[in-house]
């Protein structure tokens, strides 16, 4: 009896290997593993989501600046003395626009500076001006205010992407210049500037002298209507500081600026590590404070063809090329794919040929896309002698690539139509062909369309095979036909991503954004088709 009693636990239940302490610990461990496993799975899903958010946010934040472009409004002299209305084609419009810009900066005199100044506006200005004059001859004969697109560096600076510029801060001491232009000395009333220069990467020299090289931040002092760039500072008597500086914009006078009358601007990014010089920054800020700079919707990007100049490059040529290519792909892949699916699903007897076709289709679906490019190069270009870089060849290659996708989707859709439909049609005397084309196919059509759109979306984003057939060529013209040399959107993205100019980075992201918008639209149509029309039996 006592033995039996002792084998009961405190609560009166028998203790066994399933209920003893070790078992409880085991159970606890098992539940812990369970929780861990579950969280691991959730983490995997979350990680995938995080990657997507990271990818999209990177691209969207980069793309947004490219949607706008800065223009400077200049008074352009189109009087008969400059532009002969009889010889509109022989006028150097670029020079006229550049003159209008240099006229804004009378104190810029050296050759080198003038060249820098002219570089602020886009090299495509002349082309735009000529086109607008051709469209509106009324502009001729006088001076007109005309908005000129800025060069890519100037544009990027104004968008805040090239240099880190602090806001103007009043200097709380007097500033006395020695001259109004050239290399001058500035005398500061106290030594606060020394600590400031040290904080911005100035190099220490002898006797407490601080040198601001191009590897340090730029310190600009604006007063008396001009701007001076500090190059070196040294402490002087009575706690004052004497600074050497280069005048970027001439001062009005050598009168000392009172406390709070001079302003200090710090450009944090050292001049050596940015693509825009201090002078250009000062000029641009002057134009901006004069209210001449205007940020507009970037119509150049959306409606022109490719260019080697970032501010002139547009995606329209690539969009048209993509569109032409997709038309060819659709025209080939859709009829062939649907016909093949109909044959395999509805007519094909079980024999070696059909088995071989099926194995082939499944294999083709898994062949790397670049191999299709090699096929296009060897067969379409070299064997049949078709034109390089043409949308028709690109479309054919992509059609071969999309074909398996369309066939597989169409077969699934045909298979989903219940046999009763076929039997009913056959029962009232329809032939096999009539059954398929009048009854089965219309019912399967929504599914087929969905599969086709998804296949086309896949083809739209495909790049590698088109590189093989020369669609990577640099093409400025907007393609007008199926055999014109063209490039397509993903290839354009690939080419721009390789260009070293900083302006192309934003353009690339914006082009990606356009591509993604097209893909989203196509997928949305596919989803709507599936929701609205697909029938469940």
């Amino acid at each position, binding site marked *: 009896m006592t033995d039996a009693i002792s084998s009961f636990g405190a609560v009166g239940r028998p203790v066994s290997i399933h209920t003893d302490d070790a078992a409880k610990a085991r159970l606890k461990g098992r539940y812990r593993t369970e929780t861990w496993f579950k969280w691991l799975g959730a983490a*995997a899903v979350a990680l*995938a989501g995080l990657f997507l958010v990271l990818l999209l946010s990177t691209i969207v934040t980069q793309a947004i600046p490219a949607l706008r472009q800065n223009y400077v409004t200049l008074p352009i002299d189109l009087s008969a003395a400059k532009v002969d209305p009889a010889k509109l084609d022989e006028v150097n419009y670029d020079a006229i626009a550049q003159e209008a810009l240099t006229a804004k900066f009378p104190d810029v005199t050296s050759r080198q500076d003038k060249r820098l100044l002219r570089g602020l506006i886009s090299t495509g200005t002349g082309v735009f001006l000529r086109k607008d004059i051709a469209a509106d001859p009324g502009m001729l004969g006088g001076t007109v205010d005309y908005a000129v697109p800025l060069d890519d560096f100037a544009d990027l600076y104004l968008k805040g992407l090239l240099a880190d510029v602090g806001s103007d801060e009043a200097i709380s001491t007097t500033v006395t210049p020695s001259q109004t232009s050239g290399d001058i000395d500035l005398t500061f009333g106290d030594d606060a500037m020394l600590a400031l220069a040290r904080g911005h990467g100035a190099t220490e020299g002898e006797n407490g002298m601080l040198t601001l090289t191009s590897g340090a931040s730029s310190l600009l002092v604006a007063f008396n209507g001009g701007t001076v760039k500090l190059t070196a500072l040294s402490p002087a008597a009575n706690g004052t500081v004497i600074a050497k500086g280069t005048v970027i914009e001439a001062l009005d006078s050598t009168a000392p600026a009172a406390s709070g009358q001079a302003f200090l601007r710090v450009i944090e990014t050292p001049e050596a590590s940015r693509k825009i010089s201090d002078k250009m920054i000062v000029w641009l800020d002057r134009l901006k404070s004069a209210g001449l700079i205007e940020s507009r919707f970037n119509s150049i990007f959306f409606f022109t063809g490719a260019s080697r100049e970032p501010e002139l490059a547009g995606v329209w040529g690539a969009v048209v090329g993509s569109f032409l290519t997709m038309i060819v792909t659709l025209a080939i892949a859709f009829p062939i794919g649907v016909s093949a699916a109909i*044959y395999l699903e509805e007519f094909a007897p079980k024999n070696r040929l059909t088995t071989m076709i099926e194995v082939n*289709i499944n294999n083709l679906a898994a062949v790397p896309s*670049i191999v299709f490019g090699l096929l296009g190069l060897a067969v379409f270009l070299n064997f049949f002698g078709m034109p390089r870089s043409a949308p028709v060849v690109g479309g054919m290659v992509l059609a071969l690539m999309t074909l398996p996708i369309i066939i597989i989707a169409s077969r699934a859709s045909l298979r989903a139509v219940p046999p009763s439909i076929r039997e009913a049609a056959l029962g009232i005397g329809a*032939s096999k062909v009539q059954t398929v084309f009048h009854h089965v196919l219309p019912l399967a059509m929504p599914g087929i369309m969905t599969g086709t759109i998804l296949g086309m979306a896949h083809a739209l984003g495909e790049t590698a095979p088109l590189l093989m057939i020369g669609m990577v060529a640099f093409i400025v013209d907007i393609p007008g036909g199926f055999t014109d040399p063209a490039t397509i959107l993903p290839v354009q993205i690939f080419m721009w991503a390789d260009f070293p100019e900083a302006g192309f980075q934003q353009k690339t992201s914006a082009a990606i954004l356009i591509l993604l918008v097209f893909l989203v639209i196509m997928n949305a149509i596919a989803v709507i088709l599936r929701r609205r029309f697909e029938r469940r039996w």
Partner: protein
Amino acid sequence: MVGYLVVLLLVLAAAAYWIGRTRAIASVNGDVARLHSLPGQHGMFLALFAAGPALLAIVVWSLVTPSIESSIIADRFSSELSGMGVPQVEAFIRDARAIAFGGLVGFADPTKEAAAALYKSVHATSTWIIWTVALVLSASGFYWAYSRIAQAYRARHVVERILRAFLIACSVVAILTTIGIVLSLIFESLRFFQQVPFYKFLFGTHWSPQSAFTGAGAEAGAVNEDIFGMVPLFAGTLLITFIAMLVAAPIGLMAAIYLSDYASKSVRAVAKPVLEILAGIPTVVYGFFAALTVAPYFRGIGESLGLNVASESALAAGVVMGIMIIPFVSSLSDDVINAVPQSLRDGSAGLGATKSETIRKVVLPAALPGIVSAMLLAVSRAIGETMIVVMAAGLAANLTANPLEAVTTVTVQIVTLLVGDQEFDSAKTLAAFALGLVLFCITLSLNIVALRVVQKYREQYD
């Protein structure tokens, strides 16, 4: 001008349909029930015969005529072209065509102008020939078919047989594509192996085809056989694929398990589209992301840890490729896991197993062949992936297993060898096809193995 011909034939076909229909109805004086075939089928019959053969002729013509025209030009100007190599002859013909029909002309000279004039006249002749042939075919087809239409004529059978032949022809396109791929790869590779022995290609450890032609004078055309060793490319491909699978396999598999066995309906409604979007993003976008964001990021981390990370490191390309493959792995695994019957899970739960024990000890072993096959397909996908590595991996062929260094892959080299101006006969260009052949063979065998694994080891439950 051939475009007009096609339009004309289509109009003819529409007219023939209407004529055939009318004639069929007229042949029974409007009593349609007495016809063997429907009037529309008679119309279709007539339209097919009026336009079909002519359209076929146009397709054949447009496929063969460019090469015939070029060969005529090359033949006529053979004395002028005799000293030139194949690429120069191609450039000559391209320029002649551009002068004749408009387009970008490299530079013009009198010989090319003459060739362009000849080109124009040859092309005019061939256009004239196809117009005549098409119209004759169309007229005779129409006449023949028109004379057949009668009350008892079995037009339906003819039309349906033609339709069926068309359907079969469309299905055969898949076979033709495979044959085209295999033949083009094999022929170009054979030409390559005539210049470079294949064992040197397969087992050589030095790859630098950009310096393919060394020596001068008499040896100017000689090919240095030792610079076409593909082992470094293969090793680079494997390294990047390995890194990609390290990212994709666990994340993809765990995501599939979570979504199929744990996730609530609302989580699934969000997570599935996320994976689909990830799968739908073009690879060029991933490439841009890798080159612009991920590679500098890894480089920065490496610098802060005191490691020297190449700016085109295998790690960055591999990780981004892994991200790209996650949805592929997870959707394939999801299918496989869902195919394990519920009764197995219920049985395991009935024995007191927790959910994770059920998954690890019952579901995964049952789904193992499918998961292995999914992983093999993912590997095949990673090996064949091009854009990410073209944009984010290096060009120099390093034989290294260090993921922080730059390596190059088979696909990168195919692109570098073939993009830009190419001479089609050089060993450099042909090497790309040999690489393509290797790539095709590897991915194909991986797919076949994946298929066999499933067929051989899958348990049939239901």
